């Protein structure tokens, strides 16, 4: 390879089979204490309900389990290893003190139904985090119950629907810009709304004239991501809010990109009625290979009666408790109170930052995205020259002339020691390359990234085949996804 990377060096990684292939009868990684009550006759107790056999469950020792999962872990890329510039995913540093405090005995072992009297610590955490998030968003009330961003969208739209219903008409449609995340239309469908597409203008933002003509009394809400998935702030946001409100509609904000706004501007101040946050994006709780997340929904006063129940309240004696008496509530969206462990982590992040740290974080996130943009402009096509906030979207237009697509460049980036950017999204940009560095990247790491991206662009000119067949440095080469979907093998089975 002519273009060698400064970021990464290949090294040996261990092979490891499936755990079932290491199993043999008689091995064990467990030991139970002696029973302090009489043994029981299980077949007498359970009768026909007794299970006799646990099939192909593994039998392995503890050291094998440690090695198994440690080896698997080394096959993953992670924020802890380097820049993870997935656009709209906000892959920022996950502070370790968050993990430590979430494991404190009284928080980790608390049963959700233990009496309120001995739950004041947990309730205080919920209350404090709620207050912080209300202040950060500029909204009036909040629920922490939703388990993830999409779940928050569902909750928010259910509340919007309940609000309209209370006025006598739930309305029929939800407007969604063509740049939106797929969860937005999927959520609208789950809440029984039809989806009407809203076209972006040539600057990549909402076309206010189009919005005005599409807005009517059938429209329940506009679901808007701001900054949008191009990393562009909706500059005419006040007009957008006015158009919605004039016809009695609600402005829903998808808070996926809140990392561009915290401490600098508050959605509640620019006309948003309901929004969700992703604690696993903006507030540093770990993505964990796909979850858990947490998707609090903040609302204006008009929607407060519809919040899922229960809500945390201060009782007359000054202690905290759950209020279930909420006749207008949309109901529950999840058993218990939500992903509490994520609340603990998100609040720890807010406490570690304070108002000055939160603002600096946002400024650095925007600064970093603009620095990446500057470094790659001219080398890659920038379809929308509109000012960049926390992420920047390029396209593969220049490279596609050589037959190299965004997905190929992404795979080649792996060889340079980076996780790829978000590929082929947003849909309004053909061959999109969506880059969000977050505040967690140093100048040095970003310089390496820019160098890698520039080097790949040169490779596309000189030796496109290298890029087209990438990655070359991973344990497995490109995997056959078509075969995986055509004849799905979704579980291991013993050889016959």
């Amino acid at each position, binding site marked *: 390879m002519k273009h060698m990377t400064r970021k990464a060096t290949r090294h040996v990684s261990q092979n490891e089979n*499936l755990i079932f292939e290491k199993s043999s009868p008689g091995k064990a990684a*467990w030991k139970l204490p002696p029973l302090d009550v009489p043994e029981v006759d299980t077949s007498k107790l359970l009768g026909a309900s007794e299970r006799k056999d*646990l099939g192909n469950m593994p039998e392995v020792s503890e050291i094998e389990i440690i090695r198994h999962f440690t080896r698997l872990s080394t096959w993953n890329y992670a924020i802890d290893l380097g820049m993870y510039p997935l656009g709209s995913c906000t892959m920022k540093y996950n502070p370790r003190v968050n993990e430590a405090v979430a494991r404190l005995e009284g928080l980790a*072992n608390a049963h959700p139904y233990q009496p309120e009297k*001995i739950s004041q610590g947990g309730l205080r955490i919920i209350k404090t985090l709620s207050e912080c998030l209300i202040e950060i968003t500029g909204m009036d009330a909040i629920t922490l119950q939703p388990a993830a961003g999409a779940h928050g969208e569902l909750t928010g739209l259910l509340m919007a629907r309940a609000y309209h219903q209370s006025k006598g008409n739930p309305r029929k449609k939800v407007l969604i810009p063509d740049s939106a995340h797929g969860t937005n239309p999927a959520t609208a469908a789950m809440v029984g709304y039809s989806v009407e597409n809203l076209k972006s203008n040539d600057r990549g933002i909402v076309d206010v004239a189009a919005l005005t003509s599409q807005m009517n009394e059938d429209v329940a809400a506009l679901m808007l991501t701001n900054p949008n998935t191009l990393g562009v702030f909706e500059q005419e946001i006040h007009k957008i809010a006015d158009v919605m409100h004039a016809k009695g509609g609600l402005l829903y904000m998808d808070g996926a990109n809140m990392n561009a706004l915290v401490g600098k*501007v*508050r959605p509640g101040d620019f006309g948003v009625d309901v929004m969700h946050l992703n604690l696993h994006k903006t507030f540093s709780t770990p993505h964990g290979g796909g979850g858990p997340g947490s998707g609090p929904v903040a609302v204006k006063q008009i929607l407060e009666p519809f919040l899922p129940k229960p809500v945390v309240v201060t009782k007359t004696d000054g202690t905290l408790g759950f209020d279930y008496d909420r006749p207008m509530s949309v109901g529950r969206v999840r058993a218990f109170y939500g992903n509490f462990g994520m609340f603990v982590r998100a609040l720890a992040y807010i406490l570690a930052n304070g108002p000055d740290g939160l603002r600096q974080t946002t400024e650095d996130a925007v600064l970093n995205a603009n620095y990446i943009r500057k470094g790659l402009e001219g080398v890659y096509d920038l379809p929308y020259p509109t000012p960049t906030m926390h992420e920047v979207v390029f396209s593969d237009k220049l490279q596609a002339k050589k037959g190299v697509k965004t997905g190929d460049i992404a795979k080649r980036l792996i060889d340079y020691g980076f996780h790829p950017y978000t590929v082929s999204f947003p849909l309004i940009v053909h061959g999109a390359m969506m880059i969000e560095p977050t505040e*967690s990247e140093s100048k040095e790491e970003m310089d390496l990234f820019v160098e890698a991206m520039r080097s790949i662009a040169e490779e596309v000119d000189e030796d496109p085949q290298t890029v087209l067949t990438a990655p070359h440095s991973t344990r497995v080469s490109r995997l056959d996804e078509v075969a995986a979907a055509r004849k799905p093998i979704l579980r291991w089975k013993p050889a016959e």
Partner: protein
Amino acid sequence: MRYLPKSDADRRELLKAIGARSIDDLFAPIPAEYRLQRDLKVPRQMAESEIVDWYRERSRENGDGYCAFLGAGAYSHYRPVIIDSLISRGEFLTAYTPYQAEISQGTLQSIFEFQTMICELTGMEVANASMYDGSTGAAEAVMMAARLTGRRSVVIARSVHPEYREVLATYAWHQGMPLSLAGFSKTGRLDLKALEEGINADTACVLIQSPNFFGTIEDVEAIADIAHRKGALLVVSIAEAVSLGIVEPPRQADIIAMEAQSFGVPLGFGGPYCGVIATREQFVRQMPGRLVGQTTDRNGKRGFVLTLATREQHIRREKATSNICTNQALVALMANIFMTVYGKVGLKELAKQNLAKTAYAAEQFGRHAKVLFAGAPRFNEFVVETSEDPYAINSRLLGHKIVGGLPLKKFYPELGNAALWCCTELTTRTSIDTAVAMVAESERSVQSGKEAEVTEEVTR
């Protein structure tokens, strides 16, 4: 700020490179009237030591050191130490959803193993990578059944976790999905006659839980038979996963929606937990949530990828099977490690200990108070009816650092002074005996109170 890897000199250099005069230039797209000109009113920046102290205080206020007899959808089981050792590895903890398969094989293979073990334990053919929790998993399973049958309504057993039923009601609200309830009989099991009457030609599925909310194991075969005869599917919710070690899984179900919290996931005041949906192969294309499949790379080497994504929101948008995106991956990894540690033999022995502790406790309570639903097998929960209000008994138990059973009045008014008690392998005989003694004392004092009244009556 200690998480930010930049000096002020770095920031100036970056601004210079960009060609901006100040950071404010970069925020110029935001209309000036909305830009916040003050500090956010959140607590000041704290040192790590202060944060730890603050949380230690909250932890002390939160039931630290109590022994709880609470189950009801959240179970206290021992968590092997290696679970946290392994999930704390940054490569698992700080990775995103494994869309880039070549550098996500660790996560992908572990999910494939998780799916396999869930299939083995539930007797189903396919399992997904996880749902948010047992309650939302059950609601999504019901919606999946509606898509599969083209029918609209649902019959729900009243013995399904009341909060799961509330979640389903919320989800069903705007789907035009009529819900009806089928009660339970004296044995605590679903009333089969009520079920039979409840199902009609529009019933997409029957939703039950087994072991049910009272800890009673349902007669799944009989229920499946009734549902299937009327063309409805059977969805079974499993809230206590450890039961699968000793209780025959509901193999006759069409969809199983499970909560895997019992498999090594901390109680954590209610979350994060780990839902999962398992079903038959023929139904997989209507299944919500991510799936990992096996395939090969260009050299024929085995590898794993996310697959059947055409069911999902990022491809199908409003036509997707669900809006779910982020799931509970790291929690599923906890469950995966737990299942691997206990395995084929350990899970059975673990479940047996739960059974033994519960049988002992039920017997002891039964000597002094009424244990309801004795006519059907149970796993690790049982319902005790006392003469005194269980809240009053529980508040005395708190003085002994014991949290008594969950009073059921709130969910089932007709059960009066009944409470749901749970014993796991972690419940000691000593704490059972202490709780039983308190209940016995309560019964004696109610009894002597009654006798005193009678005596008073007689003397009058």
